[in-house]
C-alpha cells in the first residue's frame, strides 16, 4: 500500500484546513485593516489595536473575563481533581456508577439548559447576579472537563506507590502532596488550562447567569456585533484567538512531554 502523499490526500487536507481556518484567517487579516469599513482593504495598520486601549467597555469586559476564567479554573481544578480521585481510588463505593455517570453529564448537556437551570437556582436562592454567579456557573461546567482529564491519568497511576509511601510512615494527606500530586501534575495543569479556555470563550452560560457590571468579553463582542462589525472587534478577537492558541498548545505540550517521559520510564521498567 502506498503511504506517501497522493493528490487525494493533499487536497483533502487542504480543503479541510481551508474550511476550518479561512474564516479565522480573514478575521485576523482584517484586524490589521486601516479602513473603517470592515470589508474594504485600506492598507496595513495596527491602529485598531491602539484604539482598543481607549475602549473602556471592551477593556472592562476583558478584565472581568480574565478574572472569571482564572478564579473558576482554579476552583474547578481542585474540585475536578478531587472528584477524579474519589472515582478512581476508592474502589466500588455505593452509588459509584451513578456518580461517575453524573460527572460526565455536563459534557453533553446543552449549554442553554445548564445556563437556564443555574439561572433558576440563583433566582430561587435570591443570589445577586454578577461576577460570582458567572464564576460559579463556570466552575460547574468546567469541573467535569478537569475530572475527565485527571481521571484518564489516574487510571494508569500505580497505586502501590501510595501504599509504599504509607508503609514508609507518610500519612495519607502528606502522601497526596509528596507522591500523588507531583506525578499527576501534568494532567492537573492541562485540566486547569482547559477549564481556563472554556471559561474564556463561553457566551451562553455567562449570558444566562450574569448581572449588572459583570459583562464578559464574548458577551460584549456579541452585543456590539449586532450593531455592526467594527475593526476593533476583529482586533479583540485576534487577541482572544492568540491567547487560546497559546494556552491550548502549552497544555498539549505539557501533557505530551509528561506522557512520553512516563512511557520511556515504563519501557525501561519493563526491560529491567
Amino acid at each position: 500500500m502506498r503511504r506517501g502523499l497522493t493528490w487525494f490526500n493533499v487536497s483533502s487536507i487542504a480543503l479541510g484546513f481551508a474550511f476550518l481556518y479561512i474564516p479565522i484567517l480573514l478575521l485576523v487579516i482584517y484586524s490589521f485593516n486601516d479602513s473603517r469599513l470592515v470589508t474594504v482593504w485600506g492598507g496595513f495598520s495596527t491602529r485598531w489595536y491602539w484604539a482598543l486601549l481607549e475602549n473602556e467597555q471592551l477593556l472592562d469586559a476583558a478584565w472581568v473575563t480574565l478574572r472569571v476564567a482564572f478564579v473558576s479554573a482554579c476552583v474547578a481544578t481542585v474540585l475536578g481533581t478531587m472528584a477524579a480521585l474519589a472515582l478512581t481510588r476508592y474502589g466500588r463505593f455505593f452509588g459509584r456508577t451513578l456518580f461517575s455517570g453524573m460527572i460526565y453529564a455536563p459534557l453533553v448537556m446543552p449549554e442553554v439548559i445548564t445556563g437556564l437551570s443555574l439561572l433558576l437556582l440563583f433566582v430561587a436562592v435570591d443570589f445577586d447576579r454578577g461576577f460570582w454567579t458567572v464564576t460559579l456557573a463556570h466552575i460547574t461546567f468546567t469541573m467535569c472537563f478537569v475530572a475527565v482529564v485527571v481521571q484518564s491519568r489516574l487510571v494508569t497511576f500505580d497505586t502501590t506507590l501510595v501504599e509504599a509511601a504509607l508503609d514508609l510512615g507518610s500519612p495519607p494527606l502528606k502522601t497526596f502532596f509528596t507522591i500523588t500530586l507531583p506525578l499527576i501534575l501534568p494532567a492537573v495543569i492541562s485540566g486547569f488550562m482547559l477549564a481556563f479556555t472554556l471559561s474564556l470563550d463561553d457566551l451562553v452560560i455567562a449570558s444566562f447567569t450574569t448581572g449588572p457590571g459583570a459583562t464578559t468579553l464574548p458577551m460584549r463582542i456579541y452585543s456590539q456585533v449586532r450593531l455592526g462589525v467594527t475593526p476593533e472587534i476583529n482586533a479583540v478577537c485576534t487577541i482572544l484567538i492568540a491567547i487560546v492558541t497559546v494556552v491550548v498548545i502549552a497544555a498539549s505540550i505539557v501533557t505530551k512531554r509528561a506522557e512520553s517521559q512516563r512511557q520511556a520510564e515504563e519501557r525501561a521498567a519493563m526491560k529491567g
Partner: protein
Amino acid sequence: MASEKTRKETIGAVRRSFAPWTDPTKTPLIRFENVVKRFGDFTAINDVSLDIYEREFFALLGPSGCGKTTLMRMLAGFDEPTTGRVTLAGQDLAGVPPYRRPVNMMFQSYALFPHMNVADNIAFGLKQDKMPKADIDARVEEMLKLVKLTPFAKRKPHQLSGGQRQRVALARSLAKRPKVLLLDEPLGALDKKLREETQFELMDLQMELGMTFLIVTHDQEEAMTVADRIAVMNNGVLVQVATPAEIYEQPATRYVADFIGDVNLIACKVRSCQGDQAVLVTPITSSPIHVTQQVEAATGDEAWVAIRPEKLRITLDQPPDITENCFEGTIWDIGYLGDLSIYHVELPCGTRIKVSQPNLSRMVQRPISWDDKVWVTFAPHAGVVLTR
C-alpha cells in the same frame, strides 16, 4: 581467605542452633491468632494461626491466590482481619494504620517513586520520622554502601537496571530498621542467575542486620533456599509449617509433597503396620512396598506412598532382591539436564514414574536408552507414607 572462613563458621554456628520455634519459653514476635479474612463472599484467609520468631527468615509459600499476600498485607496494615488478631511484639495491631506500624515492605513492583532520585527514595521513610538531616544523610550513605549503589545516588529509578532497582527498593525498606521486613515476591522480576545470587545476598543481609524477614513467594526453590521455616498455604489455610528439609522429606499431605519438588505419588492399601515398619500393596507392581515409618492406619486403609525421583535407583540388570520395593518397566522418555538425567519409566499397567539419576561420569559403557527394559528399586527409608 582466613576471614572468609571465620565468617562461614559463624553462619554455620548460628544456623545450626537457630530453632526458637522448638523452645516453649520463647515468645513469638509476630502472632496471627485465628485470623479470617473475607472479601465479600470470598474467604481469602480461613482461620490461620501462625507464630513467627525474632530473627527468623520466614517464607509464605503457595500458588497465586492462596492468600499468602493477603496475610502479609494484614501485617503491613493494608488489610484488616475480618475476625482474629494480629499482634507484633505483644501489641495488637487492630486499627493501627500502615504509617504507624514498625514494619516495612518491599513491593513486588518495587514501587520506587519515579520523580525522586535513588538517595531521596531511600531517605523518604527517614524524613517521615523527623530525623535530623545529618543523620538521614549518614543512614542513606550507609544503605547505599550496603546495596553497592553509592555511585548511583543521584540517578532516577528509570535510569537503573532491573537488578539495581531491586536493590534500591531493598535499601529503602531497610533504611528505617523496621522490626520486620516484608518481602513480596522480591525477586520475581529478576532473571534466574541474578535471582539465585540475590537469594544468598538476602540471607547474608538478614544475618548481618539480625532482623526478622517475612518473604512471600510462589517459587519453592526460593523459599527453600532462603527461609529458616516455610509455611505452605493453599486456599487460605496453612497446610504445613516446618523447616525446608522437613517440608521436603516429611510432607504432611499429598498437596505439599506434590507442590514442593517432583514426586511420584503411588496410591496404595495398607497391608500391615508394626512399630516403625509399614507394608503397603499397590496394583501397579506385584512387589509390596516397604517403608520405615510409623503409620497411624489399619490394614486395608487407603494411603499414598510419595517417593522423590532422586531417591529411586534405575538399573538395566535385574537387582538381586525383587521381593519388595521394586518396579519393572520400559523407558518411555529421557530428559538430559547435564548434571542429571530424568527417566520416565512406563510400567506394564501404563502408569509412568519419574526417576532422576546424577550423571556421575562423562562416559558410560552402556547408557540407558529409549525402550530399554529397566528395574527401578528404592530403599525402605526412601519413601514416605501419606494418609491425607
